[in-house]
């Protein structure tokens, strides 16, 4: 057992150096706004040109074939440098792993390079008005035609769909099917004929997600991921990634915890808040070490990944609540900490609510009866 990171120090230095020269001096506008979205897309292009937008992918698709450890180190440097939020995240972290597991070589070659280059930004379309935690209750349909599929129905809460280019989601392709059977995983353009995107303001009013209405939207057969009718299986492999480390890497919280310690000090190091700041720092370190443990394991972590999702989402809320309390009367005012706070509040809800994750841990990890 060791924590010897010397093998990745050269990579770390390269990333740090590039970021020091390239991270915008003034923060970009919020990525949940039209202007901010465009600025963040531009940033993705720069990252892509330096082959830093998806370091763990194979080189053939625009990555660097980075090891899991290199990826963790990249993330540490990325957030320590105060680099912009990742507008490409749904594609890079959710769709791409699904394609690696279930996509065809043609799909990989067609979809991944423009994703890495920041040219195509993706939105995830799973949830529906009647299918939230109970995703298998979804009703949007895909109907087979001669050369592809026609999509109908409604999706909702699709992050960044207001400004994104393409979407991926689950549709019921067998009308006689129920629950998780008869679903197909499809990709579709958000500007296709028949797609209506209605942005939804999140808690602070920014159009961070959107409702999608499908009215006979044509999708070519090549855009089915995995087997027709086997979409649930493919979707669950993406869900596993979301719950594991990739969606919110440890580096993000390490950097935020350091900023919290600095904020606490700048505001007079109030002893009444000291223990809370300490706990946040401790938890950020715990998540970092848990990440090292996870990538060191040779077995599949399976349902245990649920524990990561609970931990980082609660840590994020705790971290930002503490920041707002340090800020006192300033806490309610618009600014980076408030933006982070609003963002953090959704963490326990998306990517499988924390109640659902607790069910998973209790039943599949601890073996309690259903």
């Amino acid at each position, binding site marked *: *057992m060791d924590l010897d*990171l010397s093998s990745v120090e050269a990579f770390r230095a390269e990333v740090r150096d590039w970021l020091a020269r390239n991270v915008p001096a003034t923060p970009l506008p919020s990525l949940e706004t039209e202007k901010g979205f465009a600025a963040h897309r531009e940033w993705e292009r720069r990252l892509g040109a330096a082959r830093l937008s998806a370091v763990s992918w194979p080189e053939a698709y625009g990555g660097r074939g980075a090891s899991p450890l290199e990826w963790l180190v990249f993330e540490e440097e990325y957030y320590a440098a105060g680099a912009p939020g990742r507008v490409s995240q749904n594609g890079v972290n959710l769709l791409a792993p699904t394609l690696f597991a279930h996509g065809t070589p043609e799909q990989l070659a067609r979809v991944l390079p423009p994703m890495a280059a920041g040219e195509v930004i993706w939105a995830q379309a799973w949830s529906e008005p009647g299918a939230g935690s109970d995703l298998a209750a979804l009703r949007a349909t895909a109907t087979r035609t001669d050369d592809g599929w026609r999509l109908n129905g409604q999706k909702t809460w699709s992050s960044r769909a207001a400004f994104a280019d393409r979407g991926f989601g689950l549709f019921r392709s067998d009308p006689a099917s129920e629950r998780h059977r008869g679903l197909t995983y499809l990709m579709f353009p958000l500007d296709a004929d028949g797609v209506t995107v209605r942005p939804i303001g999140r808690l602070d009013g920014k159009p961070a997600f959107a409702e999608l209405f499908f009215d006979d939207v044509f999708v070519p057969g090549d855009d089915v991921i995995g087997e027709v009718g086997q979409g649930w299986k493919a979707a669950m492999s993406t869900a596993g990634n979301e719950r594991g480390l990739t969606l919110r890497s440890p580096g993000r919280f390490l950097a935020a915890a350091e900023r919290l310690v600095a904020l606490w000090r700048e505001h007079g190091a109030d002893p009444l808040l*000291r223990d809370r700041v*300490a706990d946040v720092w401790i938890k950020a370190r715990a998540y970092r*070490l848990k990440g090292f443990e996870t990538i*060191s394991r040779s077995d599949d972590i399976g349902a245990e990944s649920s524990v990561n999702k609970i*931990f980082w989402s609660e840590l994020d809320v705790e971290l930002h609540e503490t920041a707002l309390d340090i800020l006192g009367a300033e806490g309610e005012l618009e600014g980076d900490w408030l933006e982070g706070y609003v963002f953090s509040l959704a963490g326990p809800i998306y990517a499988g609510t924390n109640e659902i994750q607790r069910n998973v*841990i209790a039943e599949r990890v601890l073996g309690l009866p259903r």
Partner: protein
Amino acid sequence: MKFVLDAEQRLFGETLHKLLTEAGTPGVIRSWAAGEHDRTLWTALAQAGVFALAVPERHDGAGPRPIELVTAMVELGRHAVPGPVVETLAAAALFEGVGDEELSAEWLPRLAAGHAVVSLVPPSAEEAPPCRALDADVADLVLLTEGEGLWSARPEGTPRRSIDPARRLFTVTPAAPLASGPAVREAAAAAYDLGTLACAAQSLGVGRALLDITVAYAGTRRQFGRSIGEFQAVKHHLANAFTGLEFARPLVYGAAVSAGSPEFARDVSAAKVAASDAAYVTARIALQVHGAIGYTDEYDPSLWIRKAVALHSAWGSPANHRARLMKALS
């Protein structure tokens, strides 16, 4: 980078688990609490190599091996082993740090072999820490540090009883000087860090055992015609306990890995806060999920519940360690 135990380290933990399961620790704990201080288990632990982990090879030990030491203490916590184990390990670090070869040669080989039970007053740098040593009446030697002085000490009067019936805490007073000088101060700090790490690992083991015991109980206890483990409120309690313990573990092992580095004290404090909090939360959940039976003295799991409470504040309260951490960060 490989941040998991290797096969040999895992085997060491499994061997101790087996040894302790066969020893039937609940009985041992109850005898210890009743004042019968049989050393059979202590000797067995020494033979398994536990105390040698903090003793250098030149004094018949195998140490320092902080990772194996943590592995061992997790198992000892899992079985709620009584006695001044943490104190004896910390004493080894204290002797080693003081560097008085005569003193080391007198005590360390005996300590490694399990022939010397040593207790001490945790040498915390806090202001006016309580001057109490665990199981001082059982120990062959009791140590006390004051500034640059190392003393042997003797217990005074009757012990204070802890919520953990196996923990009896004695007020001690200095008896004879053993060593003095700046090395003592440094050695005391090193011993405190090692003892705190051992205590954190012990807490982690206590918490892990409580989770296992409680999951098993939730699967068998029936109310309203079904097992209580089917109720979501119970499930979520247990999932929370699991989450806390899962994230305390890497902090405890991470601190062991940083032994010898300038970050050791900081990392030990982080580990102690997380492990003792996780064990404490698990103890509260264990109590709640067991219902009234968990609140009884005679039911064995309550031995673990009470140990989790005691260890929460032993070797520095969480507040102390948070303060120390924040100081280290500045």
